[in-house]
């Protein structure tokens, strides 16, 4: 079977282009200008640099517009954590209450430590009197 396959594949050699097409295409190609070395340098180097520069410029411009837009419209109105539904007086009250808890905790610590110190002093005095 392989031989038959190869025979059929070889029979594809009979495919040939039309002579009219060949002469027309040949004339058109040979009358076309060749790209010069300058074209390759421009296409390969300068053009790529221009593309890269343009991309960076556009990206910078976009960033400037986004940042400028945010500051222009006021971030307070856009930011989800700074929504107007959150009352600033509530936040202040919460902050005060936190401070209050800290003060209570400090007082409790002072009282407890005072008792301990007192007990230690009594113990030392007892030892000295002995």
């Amino acid at each position: 079977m392989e031989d038959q396959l190869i025979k059929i594949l070889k029979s594809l050699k009979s495919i040939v282009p039309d002579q009219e097409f060949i002469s027309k295409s040949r004339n058109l190609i040979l009358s076309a200008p060749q790209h010069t070395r300058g074209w390759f340098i421009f296409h390969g180097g300068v053009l790529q640099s221009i593309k890269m520069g343009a991309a960076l410029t556009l990206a910078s411009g976009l960033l400037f517009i986004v940042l400028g837009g945010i500051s222009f419209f006021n971030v307070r109105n856009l930011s989800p954590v700074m929504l107007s539904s959150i009352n600033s007086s509530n936040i202040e009250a919460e902050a005060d209450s936190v401070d209050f808890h800290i003060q209570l905790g400090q007082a409790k610590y002072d009282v407890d430590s005072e008792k301990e110190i007192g007990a230690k002093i009594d113990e030392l005095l007892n030892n000295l009197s002995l």
Partner: protein
Amino acid sequence: MLEGEHKLIEQAKDGQQESFGKLYDHYITPIYRFVMVKVNHRDDAEDLTHEVFLSAWQNLKNYKFQGFPFSSWLYQIARNKVIDHYRTKKMHSSIDDVDENIFEIVGALEKGLDTSIALETVKEAIASLSPDQQDVLVMKFVEDLNNGEIATALKKSDGAVRLLQHRAINNLKAKLISSENNESKKELTS
């Protein structure tokens, strides 16, 4: 490989149209055939072949001789043109779209061959192969390129080309055996 090819290329690089004309005359038929087998339409094959040689002529200064014939470079361009052709037109090769001209020519030849395999079946089997496998089959068995030349054209190693060739033949065989079995079943049921 065309005699004095390297010299012709150098002259063509300097803009000598006559030298490129000789290269064109030598390679137009195999490149056209390669494209024709891939796209299966005469008009498309002519347009793409023209584009291949136009691109080769315009970009000839980019070509560097690497010990392989000029054809390897042309096949590379042709492959890219065919890929672009399918990509831009979003066409998919279907056996129904195949230009009958190609098979009329080959069909005439088939009569002279001692073969029991129907050409219609073979063309279906070839169309179902991967593009790389089709390329290898055409380059190897139709254009008689050696593995080194095929490897350069396909930008693959020699080993990969041998593997592709082996798989292509095996896939063709498998598809042909399968279609023969189907035909036999149809005949039995009818």
